[in-house]
């Protein structure tokens, strides 16, 4: 993650922004790692049913496609879930519950 260095002074506001940026970066990184681990697990299962002594070209092609399919699936799931949470929280007058 890029280090913006000194924000131009050690003012409290600058330090506060730095903390917030750091938290955002760390959470974004954790999210990316989770996604990558899932893709690795799912696509290995689907594309490499009989592990050989190397990944052949058809396995590699499958893995590429699988990565794309998984990310498309993630976007669909994400949209569906967030829409549902918003709907439920409106129905319950702001409570939600998932």
């Amino acid at each position, binding site marked *: 993650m890029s280090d913006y260095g000194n924000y131009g002074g050690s003012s*409290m*506001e600058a*330090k*506060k922004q730095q*903390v*917030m940026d750091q*938290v*955002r970066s760390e*959470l974004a990184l*954790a*999210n990316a790692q*989770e*996604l990558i681990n*899932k893709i690795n697990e*799912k*696509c290995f299962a*689907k*594309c490499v049913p009989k592990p050989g002594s190397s990944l052949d070209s058809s396995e590699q092609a*499958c893995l590429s*496609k*699988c990565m794309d*399919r*998984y990310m*498309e*699936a*993630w976007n*669909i*799931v*994400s*949209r*569906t*879930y*967030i829409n*549902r*949470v918003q709907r439920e929280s409106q129905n319950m007058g702001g409570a939600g519950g*998932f």
Partner: protein
Amino acid sequence: MSNPNFDEAAQRELSKFLEAEQAKARLQQSIHTFCDLAFDKCVTKIGNKLDRSEEACLANTVDRFLDTSLFIVRRLEETKGSM
């Protein structure tokens, strides 16, 4: 989060910010769990794109899973109520 670098107002702001980010992180963790589940159920063969039935299946999996969760809670409350 008492920190000599931040005054009370800043600490409160950071507190709220952290709460919001943690809530977002919990949402994203749920999305990962649902996507794991839904991908297994709905995408059996890896193709060049997701077809319409796979897309519908993915969305349905999320909604039905959440319906299941609500159902279970309601049923447990009914059972408790009759005790």
